């Protein structure tokens, strides 16, 4: 085990996978000479050269599509979006091509590509730069959606994403990059997609979440503990494939659920998960499931409004108390 930042963990995963497989290359804005807008690709240009670590023009639709094409004919691209807000420009290539070519051709093409970058809000970047984008992708069959919230998960899941034969949307967090944690050194430390992780154990209420929201959930759990309430915090880690077994297990244990997500509520990841729980574990529920999300508005710039708009530990505590009828 070594202690490193989330950023370093991603860097290590990229480095190891690029050493392991010469077909893996990294392309995106500022990834090479600038070491990445958030320095995730630091030093990779030096080790792998300009053919495998490539600075692109600001042409998201173009380089995302180039990646899909390269994947159709055997390469394994890792495409970096400076942030997922800008991947909106590439949605056509991702949704109309990447997620559908395997199916439309009845399996003639594999599309082993990773689209990665930060998602969600950082601090005061306003509406166009503060969007949690998970559901745009988890909505579409044909791609996989991964949202690591710790350095170890970032490393193990990125390695799995690069080795996966399907398009993987790999969502990081600007506010996570500096976070430190223990990360296994093993070059074959791979976390399989579709396996959730219980980040905290408790038996009174389940907080189910993913990505950087696990830290909000854990903060809420500590507050609840002071009131004698023990929360299970289940980190889904991947939105699709979704670890339904882990979800059903925590529901069966606590019988009360709060779902926490960074994005908007309408057709959010929570809407799907709440629906699955009521279909498959209705008899285990002692209260309606509540969701905590971003306020249902574009993100405002002003600091005080932004704080009100974001999901917070306080809102999670409030929701937990409600499902506990306290």
């Amino acid at each position, binding site marked *: 085990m070594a202690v490193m930042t989330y950023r370093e963990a991603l860097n290590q995963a990229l480095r190891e996978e690029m050493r392991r497989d010469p077909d893996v290359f990294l392309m995106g804005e500022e990834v090479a000479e600038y070491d990445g807008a958030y320095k995730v690709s630091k030093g990779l240009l030096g080790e792998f050269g300009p053919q495998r670590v490539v600075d692109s023009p600001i042409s998201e639709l173009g380089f995302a599509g180039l990646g899909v094409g390269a994947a159709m004919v055997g390469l394994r691209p890792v495409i970096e979006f400076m942030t997922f807000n800008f991947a909106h420009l590439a949605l056509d290539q991702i949704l109309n091509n990447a997620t559908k070519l395997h199916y439309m051709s009845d399996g003639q093409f594999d599309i082993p590509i990773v689209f990665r970058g930060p998602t969600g809000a950082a601090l005061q970047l306003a509406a166009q730069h503060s969007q949690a984008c998970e559901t745009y992708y988890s909505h579409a069959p044909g791609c996989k959606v991964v949202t690591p919230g710790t350095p170890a998960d970032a490393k193990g899941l990125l390695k799995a994403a690069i080795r996966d034969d399907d398009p993987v949307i790999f969502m990081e967090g600007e506010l996570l990059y500096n976070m430190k944690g223990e990360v296994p050194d093993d070059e074959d430390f791979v976390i399989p997609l579709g396996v959730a992780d219980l980040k905290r154990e408790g038996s009174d209420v389940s907080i189910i979440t993913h990505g950087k929201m696990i830290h909000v959930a854990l903060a809420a759990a500590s507050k609840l503990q002071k009131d004698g309430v023990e929360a299970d915090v289940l980190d889904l880690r991947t939105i699709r494939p979704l670890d339904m077994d882990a979800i059903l297990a925590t529901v069966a244990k606590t019988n009360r659920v709060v779902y926490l997500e960074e994005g908007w509520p309408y057709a959010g990841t929570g809407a799907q998960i709440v629906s699955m729980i009521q279909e498959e574990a209705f008899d285990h529920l002692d209260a309606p499931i509540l969701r905590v999300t971003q306020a249902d508005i*574009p993100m405002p710039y002003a600091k005080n409004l932004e704080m009100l708009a974001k999901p917070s530990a306080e809102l999670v505590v409030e929701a937990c108390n409600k499902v506990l009828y306290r």
Partner: protein
Amino acid sequence: MTDTKTRKGTGKPEVLKPYGVSAELALELMQEMLLYRRFEEKAEEAYAIGKIGGFCHLHIGQEGACAGTLKALREDDYVISAYREHTLAIAKGVTPNAVMAELYGRIGGASGGKGGSMHIFGTHVRFMGGHGIVGAQVPLATGFAWKIKYRAEDSVAVCFMGDAAVNQGAFHESLNMASVWELPVIFVVENNQYGMGTAFDRVSTTDMQQKSAAHGVPATSVDGQDVLATYALFRELVQEVRDGAGPKFVNLETYRFRGHSMSDPVSGTYRPTEEVERRKKEDDPIVVLRDKLFAGGLLDQAGLQEMDATARKIASEAADFAENSPVPGPENLYRNVWAEVNPHGRLFFDGRRRD
């Protein structure tokens, strides 16, 4: 600024002749550029002490491009830009107070504190923003021009963008449409040679001047550090477009003296410190004009200092205004998500209280 003092020339006012510019107008441009410089320095200061948050992209070094272009426009012309837009907003008529208050995220800000540095709007003066997605404002400008033609008006749409934006599909799609439908729009690249840390020639094999050729949109290059040349060109182009000539493309050559945003280094691996120092020394648009005005005897050191004091005063008054403007109250959170709240059906789904 309207309160510029004219100094009757005693020297050689022929320095202005090639541009066809009066002494009065040249001095106004000077006053405006000084304001833009001091305003941005004030913003820089405020950012450093945490009064401004998020991304903040300064226009320092590009004042000539801003002042020279906007001077040629009428009040009813439309202007739109990307996120490096503070001084463009001021030049179009948004007050410095409202721009600064927006940077501070206050209720007195141009966008009520909801937009911040990248999203300043002033539709009352036809300043159409303030946009954060590279290239995404270009189709919008094309839409303004469509409306102008649709309603048989004679205003003009001016679309600013950075050099990196010309690699977006939206740019090419827009130029093609503007050309096909002969729309009254001027596409202006503020070509400061870099998109963040990427030099233009690393992401393009052709010169900027050629970017509009495939779409049949005539291109002109101009030295944006020479505010008089910039103004003279736009005076001509704007008139042509107003008279129905169809779209134009301008490569406005300029340089940014600061980092890409407040969180980026001024120089580094992507551009040498010596390059920045040399450009600051040789190509400062304020110094370029000052030298002309001094040589022409149209301005002296004392006059310049007086103008600068005026600029500093407006900038610091803007900061005071921003400081004293209240933060937007929570009642603003859910305001203006929709223009029309329908009598039937639910619009908000977060289950939170909205009063």
